[in-house]
């Protein structure tokens, strides 16, 4: 099928409109909404998401990629970002996308975006036909610790001052202090939301889930927490197709990188 040019636009939402890119298929058989990862991981993964979206559109799927409130090219101060706002953003994007075509609609998320996709599906009863997860974050609390470590690491790199451990930083969040981390001003309310997210405690978000992770080699087993969620969902009747693929963690690599194996597997399996 032919390519149709992607269309950047501003999607009406709350509290401001959102920057979005729509990748329409020539003849659509369904649609996918992308849920972006958190912080710098979103910037690092821009190229992979754009490439995958074009491949999906070429294969007959409309794709909507949206920058959540205060992220990327959308308006707003990151300190004002809250899960309730992002959730509303995703619901607005979901309804906009559903209005573009008939056919099945899926949710596709990377890292914390995968976790948010599962959360929003349950909390807003979106009932996606399929969910595509790329290296989803299982426990929000571990992810938050890793994010806080960015500041710990920055304080280690500095010659002066005390090391700020995540424990110390969490204590600051607990008393309502916002934290400046790697250029993002993290509000305690948003941190508190992320801290509670746990895929292990969630019902399967759809009847069918594609779950992909990347590692140095494709024969590496899934981590125990991932295995546990996959098994639980399978026991609840969800068809989970999981694949371990060889490739760089493109959402963190120093240089912008791609994972051709993941692009190909995704386009093969989403139908």
């Amino acid at each position: 099928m032919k390519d149709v040019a992607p269309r950047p636009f501003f999607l009406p939402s709350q509290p401001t409109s959102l920057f979005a890119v729509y990748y329409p298929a020539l003849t659509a058989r369904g649609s996918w909404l992308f849920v972006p990862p958190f912080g710098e991981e979103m910037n690092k993964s821009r190229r992979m998401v754009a490439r995958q979206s074009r491949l999906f559109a070429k294969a007959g799927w409309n794709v909507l990629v949206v920058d959540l409130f205060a992220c990327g090219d959308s308006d707003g101060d990151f300190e004002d970002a809250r899960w309730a706002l992002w959730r509303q953003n995703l619901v607005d994007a979901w309804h906009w996308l559903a209005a573009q075509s008939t056919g099945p609609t899926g949710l596709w998320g990377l890292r914390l975006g995968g976790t948010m996709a599962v959360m929003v599906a349950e909390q807003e009863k979106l009932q996606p036909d399929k969910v595509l997860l790329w290296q989803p974050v299982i426990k929000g609390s571990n992810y938050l610790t890793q994010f806080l470590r960015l500041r710990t690491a920055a304080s280690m790199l500095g010659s002066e001052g005390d090391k700020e451990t995540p424990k110390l930083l969490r204590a600051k969040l607990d008393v309502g202090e916002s934290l400046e981390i790697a250029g993002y001003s993290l509000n305690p309310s948003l941190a508190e939301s992320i801290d509670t997210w746990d895929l292990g405690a969630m019902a399967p978000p759809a009847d069918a889930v594609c779950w992909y992770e990347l590692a140095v080699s494709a024969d590496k087993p899934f981590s125990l927490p991932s295995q546990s969620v996959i098994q639980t969902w399978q026991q609840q009747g969800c068809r989970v197709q999981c694949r371990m693929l060889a490739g760089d963690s493109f959402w963190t690599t120093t240089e912008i990188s791609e994972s051709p194996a993941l692009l190909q597997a995704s386009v093969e399996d989403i139908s």
Partner: protein
Amino acid sequence: MSTLMQVRDIVGEVLQLGDRTLQLSAESPLLGSIPEFDSMAVVSVITTIEEHFGFIVDDDEIGAETFATLGSLSTFVDEKLS
């Protein structure tokens, strides 16, 4: 593979050092010497080490000295494993 070699490969992989990975030895300075070794890279190295070796790093255990050289980082991993 020795711990040192495994840690070397993790550092090389996270920082995408390519062929430069093989030139790293226990004496190779990391923090402040390899330009790619910024705070995001430090976090990625810690996370990858945790996942690869299957232990959790308490942030009180690590400091700039842990990341001084490849050898100091490898020694830290050995202590965690023992």
